[in-house]
């Protein structure tokens, strides 16, 4: 089984970014502020966290990561102006599967979803990939909404 250079680069960058974000959230002061705001915004505000700035920063960070992801995907896929929406749907499924708020969860779920998409696409039907995601999502929401690594 051979992988193209693009695929290896994409994987390496994703792993590096994932680790970086995880370390950022868990080992830095701002990361702690973000986690506090996520848990209890009003209390975090009372503890001296600038909630507005934290939220704005998170949105920007998310945009940054999405931009990198888009660049990586563009190495292998044709690009068009509407590609964001379809990938947002996939991203939402990944995040829900991994557990909202858990970076390792999103990572694991991303790999799972990636494998599922290849399996369904090659063994069954490309078109059915999204319906399969939704089937997984429905089962998940019925038995364990917290996700794989989410906190209950």
């Amino acid at each position, binding site marked *: 089984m051979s992988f193209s250079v693009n695929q290896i680069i994409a994987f390496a960058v994703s792993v590096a970014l994932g680790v970086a974000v995880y370390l950022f959230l868990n080992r830095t002061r701002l990361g702690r502020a973000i986690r506090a705001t996520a848990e209890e915004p009003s209390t975090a505000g009372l503890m001296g966290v600038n909630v507005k700035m934290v939220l704005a920063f998170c949105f920007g960070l998310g945009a940054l990561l999405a931009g990198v992801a888009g660049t990586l995907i563009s190495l292998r896929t044709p690009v068009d102006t509407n590609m964001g929406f379809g990938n947002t749907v996939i991203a939402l499924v990944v995040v829900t599967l991994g557990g909202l708020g858990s970076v390792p969860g999103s990572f694991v779920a991303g790999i799972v979803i990636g494998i599922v998409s290849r399996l369904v696409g090659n063994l069954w039907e490309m*078109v059915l990939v999204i319906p399969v995601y939704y089937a997984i999502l429905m089962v998940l929401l019925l038995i364990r909404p917290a996700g794989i690594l989410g906190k209950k």
Partner: protein
Amino acid sequence: MVGLFVLFVAFVVTFPLYTTGYDVRVLTTILMYVVLAVSWAMFSGSTGYMSLAPAAFFGIGMYIMPVLQNSLPFPVIIIVVALLAFVLALLVGLVTLRLRGIYFAIFTFGLVVLMSELSYYIDARLGHSRGRFTIGVDENVLLYLMLALAVATLLTVYFIRRSRYGLALLSIGGNEEAAAHMGVNTTNVKVIFFAISAIFMGAAGVITAPALMYIDNRVAFTTFYSFMPIVMAIFGGMGHFLGPVVGAAIFGYLEKTLRDQLQAYFMLGFGIMLAVVILFLPNGLVGLAPTLQGKLREVMAKLRKGGRTEQHANT
């Protein structure tokens, strides 16, 4: 209020007598947006659960219409689709509305894409066909049907708002935990009213289909019909029952008329307008009304006092 309503209905009913076919179609589209915006706001406005599903239910109506057009009369198709949309919404609600938080929004976000892919699969792989042409229906008939649907939607929303379920929905939007403690069966209320709102969206899709003439999965299931009603409802203002109507009327008219002149740029204009509205008019256009009333009162008071200068001492 009732007088205004009767006036409005009379206006629409007599519309075809003095306007062209194009204008009739524009009015039908505006009424479609009214139905979508009002039925979206019925659930999402009160409860705060952001639903991005209107396009999915609307799309079902659009897609199923040509499927059934040779087997059933048009009004029956509307009823069948309404039931279908209701059942689907029940399903979606039962899976996601049991849970609080953003799972509902996440699920409905991609629902349109799901319907699009599924319908493509069923038609292309299992049925070996793609896309259907709709039978022609006279545009005046479509106008009247859409008017009837809009009236039905508005009446339903009006009576729900006045009933205890309207209060239940609002209480869920205010503080769901408190509502649950007050005895509101939050899950049931959410699921049922989400499903009710889907009925009107599906019916609107059936009535819109003949105007588009060619329906395939891409035409029927576009996210445009999810975002537009939301923009319209927010722009019009969700505090008041008529807010979405105002927003839908304005935006619907703009969409039809500007699209030809500006093409791609009209969406840019919409985006800017939405940003402006959220920044400066969070209560929408309807929210402007109390502010304007207050300002008007101030101006009138000043005019009345006129010559008499302020003689009151500030104690």
